Structure formats: C-alpha cells, structure tokens
C-alpha cells in the first residue's frame, strides 16, 4: 500500500433486516428490504450499482451457491457479483479493493444468514478439521468455551467480569426489557464451561447491506486488514487473538497511520461471547478512552456471516450522527475461537 495515497472509500448507504430470532420469510424476502434501505439511504437506484459483493455460507443456508437465492434482490442480474463465503466485513473490504482498483465506482455489499433454519452449532462442526477436531464433537461454541477456560484458569475472577460485560451489552441492546444483572448472567445455564448462556450473544436471522462508492459525502472506509490464523486451537495461544493484532497492523498501514496509533473514538468488535471483549482489547491495545459497542453490539442479535458488516453499519451510523466521533475501529471474526479476523478503520467524512 502506497502510504501517500491512503485507502479511502466512502460508506454511502446503510440498510439492514433484523436481527430477529426467527424471520419467517424466505432468504430473498429477508434480504430485499435491507438492500432497498441501503439504496434509499444513498439516494441511489439499482441501475446505479456497478458491482455486487455478497457474503453467505452454503451449509448455513442449505443451498449450493446460496447467493443464487439473492441474485435478483441484490441487483446482480447481468452485473459482476463476487461471492465471499465468509464474514460480511471481509466482503466489504474486497468491495473496497474493487473500487480502489478502479474497476467499479458503486459496489453493493450484502451479507445474510438464517440460523433459525438449523442448529448453527451442529453445522459449525463441519467447518472444523474432520480428522482431528470434528470427531471430538467440537463446535464453534465449544472452541469459545475452551478459549474462555484458558483465560479463566489464569484469572479466576474473569467470569464475573464477563457477566458484567454481558449484562451491560444486553441492557444496551434492549432497554425495554427488565434490565439484566451480572447475577442473572451467572445464574444462566452453563453452555461451554466457563461460558454461560447469558454470556453468549443470541443468534439471530438477518441481512445487512452497505453501499460503498468512490467518493462523495459520508464516512470513509480508510483502512483494512485481514488475517487467517492456524486452525487447530492447540497450535495457537488459546487465550489471545494474535490474528487480530496482525489484521489491525495491516489496517493501520493501509490507512497510512502509524502502527502505534490508537486514536479511536469508537470500537465495534464482533464479540459473540462476553470474554471476547477482553480478547479484543488485549489484541488491539485499545485505550480506555475508546467507547466499545455502546448499542450492545452483537448481544442485540448476532447474525452469523453478517456480524462484521453489522458492526460496520453501527460504526458508520454513529460517525454520521455524532460529530465528536471521528474514527472507529470495526472488527469481524469467523471460525473457531476467532481463527479468521478482519478489521476496518472508519473515519468521519471531511
């Protein structure tokens, strides 16, 4: 990346469907309103879209090339569509590459999942090494539990802090309900020791659509970085996210920022489990002044695949609404115990 020419792409339109515990519509019907909202938000129509990047995972949708289900509603008929089978934030970063390459000017990014259709944790077993991990019955939740367990072994007080984190996030995500307390979280069933049900973001159906374009008003997607760590949890430091540290370093470099720069007003991490907020802070070296997921983040409903893009949407909304918020750090993660990491740096428009 040429540092004299920072990587800047405008976040021009935002839309989402859900998150909701179970969306009774078809995948296409669920995705359509998110796309329409993003187009309306950017004051653009389908004809203005040059290219589409979608994110979906076949096994989660029970469909082969599951983006077939949404080709029409995302406006990809007779257009270039790239389909990333991974986190939606990675799809957004690829769309930014297309714009920076000069290939297209307006790119629609859409991610969706409907975990209500099947047992997501059962399906997640099929993403694990079929020789050494899958026969053990491990799933993504169990891997998160192993990671939390490694941290709790060195820090017995940790689960109580995670309960507080979870309660704060749950309350921020839905102020209408009876406020949750740390005690409630600690009383909830143990699902993957030491993780309790209340420490896990509830899975939800939904779709997120983000329009990126090569200029104009709006927040800037200024830096981006990915990382895929080694697969076996035993080959990694179980109590850390070194891949996130590497992804952030790449994002800072691509934004033309110093490696030590932590001037973030807001962070929107993809914390599916309460202990991941500490992992996020540890891996990024984030300073206490940075506000983290004031809306509760994924604890308001975690849509697999779309989670990272939903964090981008939340950060961009905040940058638009709050002039004091100038720069945000957004994270997506996928795979067992955060094996895949993706980071975006969003800056307020000039």
């Amino acid at each position, binding site marked *: 990346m040429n540092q004299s020419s920072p990587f800047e792409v405008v976040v021009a339109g935002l839309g989402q469907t859900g998150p909701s515990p179970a969306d009774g519509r078809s995948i296409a019907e669920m995705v359509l309103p998110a796309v329409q909202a993003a187009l309306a938000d950017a004051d653009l129509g389908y004809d203005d879209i040059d290219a589409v990047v979608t994110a979906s995972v076949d096994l*989660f949708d029970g469909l082969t090339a599951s983006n077939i289900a949404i080709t029409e509603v995302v406006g990809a008929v007779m257009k270039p569509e790239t389909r990333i089978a991974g986190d939606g934030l990675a799809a957004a970063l*690829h769309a*930014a590459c297309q714009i920076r390459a000069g290939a297209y000017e307006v790119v629609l990014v859409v991610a969706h999942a409907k975990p209500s259709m099947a047992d997501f944790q059962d399906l997640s077993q099929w993403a694990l090494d079929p020789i050494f991990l899958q026969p053990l019955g491990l799933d993504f939740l169990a891997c998160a539990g192993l990671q939390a367990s490694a941290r709790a072994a060195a820090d017995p007080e940790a689960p109580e802090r995670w309960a507080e984190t979870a309660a704060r996030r749950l309350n921020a995500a839905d102020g209408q309900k009876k406020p949750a307390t740390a005690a409630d979280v600690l009383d909830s069933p143990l699902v993957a020791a030491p993780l309790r049900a209340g420490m896990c973001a509830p899975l939800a159906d939904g779709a997120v659509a983000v329009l990126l374009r090569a200029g104009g008003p709006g927040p800037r997607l200024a830096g981006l970085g990915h990382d895929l760590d080694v697969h076996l949890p035993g080959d990694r430091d179980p109590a850390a996210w070194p891949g996130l540290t590497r992804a952030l370093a790449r994002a800072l470099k691509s934004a033309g920022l110093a490696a030590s720069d932590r001037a973030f007003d807001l962070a929107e991490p993809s914390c599916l489990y309460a202990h991941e907020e500490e992992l996020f802070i540890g891996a990024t070296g984030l300073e206490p002044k940075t506000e983290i997921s004031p809306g509760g983040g994924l604890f308001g409903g975690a849509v697999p695949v779309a989670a990272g893009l939903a964090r981008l949407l939340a950060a961009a909304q905040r940058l638009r609404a709050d002039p004091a918020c100038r720069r945000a750090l957004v994270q997506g993660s996928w795979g067992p115990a955060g094996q895949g990491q993706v980071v975006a740096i969003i800056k307020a428009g000039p």
Partner: protein
Amino acid sequence: MTEVAVIGSGQTDHGRKRDDVSQPELVRQAVALALADAAIEPERLDAVVISNMELFEGRALPELWLGEGAYAARKPCLKVATGGTSGTSSCIAGYHQVASGLFDVVLVVGFEKHSEGHTQTGMALTDPFWDRAVAAGALGNFALSISQYMAERGVTQEQAARVAVKARRNAARNPHAHLQMPDITVEEVLASKLLAHPVHLLDMCPQSDGAAAIVLAGGQTARRLCPRPAWIKAAETRHEQPFIGDIDRRLASMRTLREAARSTYAKAGIADPLRDLDVAEIYEPVSYAELAWYEALGFCADGEAGRLIDEGVTEMDGTLPVNPSGGVLSANPVGASGVIRVAEAAKQVLGRAGEHQVAGVETALATGYGVYAWADALVLGATP
C-alpha cells in the same frame, strides 16, 4: 489501476479419486508447484484467495482447515464460491486485490475433492420450492437447454462429438488431465451411454479430484521476477436470473458470456476475437456448451459453431486453438476448474505449456461458467 500479471502456476494430477492425499495436502501440492514455477518462497505472499464449492465435500468454511495447506496461515485470506465460476471469479478477485495496490503478490488456489462427497447431492440443493424438483444437478437442465440450442442453430450430435474428441486428444498431451483417451473417435462418443438426450457419457465432463494455483503480482514485481509475465489485460463477470425458467434460451443466447466477453474485448483492444486471440481456454462442462460458447464469444456468427469444429478452426493447428489442455471435458475439479483455465491461458503466454504449447501466443482468453448461466471472461497477454 496497478498492472497485474500471472507469474507462475501449478496443478496437481487430476483424477477420479486422489485418496493418496487429504484436502489440505492436495491444495499444498498445487500451491508448492505454483510457487516453484514463480520462483518465490511462501513468505513472499501477501494474501491468498481460495476457491472451492464446499457443499460438494459437505463442508463449511473450508479455508479454516485448508488455509495452512495454501500457505495462508497468518495472512489475509478470502474464500470465493460461485459454482463453476468459483475459480475464475477467485482469479478476478486476486486481480482486483493486486490492482488496488493493497497487496503486491497474491496466490489464488482452487480445489475440489469430489470423491469425498456427493456432487449430485450438492448440486441438488437449489431453491427448495421452484428448482429442486425440476432442475437439480447439471445433466437434466443441460439436456433441455441443449435440445433448444440444437433446434435453433442446427448443430448436430456428430459436431458435438467432434468437440469431445478434440478435448480428449488434446488432453493426451497434458499430463495433469484426468481423462486420457488419445484414440477416442466420434463413433465411440456417439455409442457411449445416453445420459439424457442428446447428451452421451463422453459428451460430459468427468468428476475429478484436483487443485490448481496461480501467483499474481503487481507490475514492478512481475517484471522483476518473471522474464515474460502473463498480464491480465481485462476481466469481467456477469451473473444471471436465479431461476432457470427465467433465463432466455440459455445456451442459445448466453447473454452473460456475450456481455462479459464484449466488455473484456473492448478493454483489451480485441476487435476480432478469432483473429486477435491466439488461444482460448474456455469452461465447457459438456461438448455442446463449447459450440454455444464459440458463438457467445464471437469466434463465429450465431449458427456457425458447427462449421468451426467441422473445419478444424479450433483444433491445435487451427486458427484459434480452443482448450489445448483438454478443457473441463478432460478434468473437472469444480473449484479448481476456473483456476485451471486461467493457469492454462497464462502458461500459453508464459511459454510454459509443454507438449500442448501453441506457438507464438501473445494474447489468450480464459472463461468461467457456473450455476445456470453465470460467466467470467479474462484476457491475458504478453503486454499489459
């Protein structure tokens, strides 16, 4: 836009059942060959793009398990899956990543290990309400579209069989090809088992295990590392209606491939593809598709594809050799097949195609075909 070139490629030996290797090992074989061909070490890679249709192996997010096999560990890694176009779309994704300036050297690797899954089951998982009962799998809906194409253009079963024979004869000079049938005849194709009229067994591609990789590099690096880089001059993708019944005459119109080709030709300065291209590696899952693609790609006018194969225009010694590698008809590891098309087109420009090298290739076309009518087109050349 940064200039981008293919500076090396590698392929496994494709076959019915590669049970001598696991999926990560299969991927590693292709990647190691590509890195050796590009004369670089794995540390030189800035990012990796992986192509695979994971439901064919019954998996999800395969890059998690396979990443290390692709030297993607601790690197940026994206997984692309768009049916048959997965490989070409992955190559285009890598091209855009390098062209953006974000990365300098990107590895693209595609693989499929059909023998560890059930491809027909995977292909049957289409729309549960409208498509699954009537259009599941590749064969049935191809047979319908082919009948329509034949009726409209007057193409014969013999002409299609000639395409099948050409592919297998070419494959005999490609050590990586799955099917090795050097002495196959038109009569044998027509006498092979009828699968669904008019498609005979030998008209169809095989189901293969295999992997293929290419190394992409930005302009300066490509010039430094490679004496004659295969530059990507243009690349385009077009997707189509999700329901097969909504697609206008499919093979006969193939508007996606027509439009993707028209757009890439315009960007690459190709006015007359038959004259301006020196070789083409096109994604033909069935013999009849190659004939339809000749028309969509502008190698001839509509209705003249049969004449092209009859006159040997697309044979190795013809005006425009098509699929010197033997094509998809001779090896089809789906997630790899598009990467193979780009790798083979690049090898022709790099002058590294061995026994199936076409002399003096300056400009080469690679195409991808997927789902019902999705299309990719890339033009590669000896100059940027």
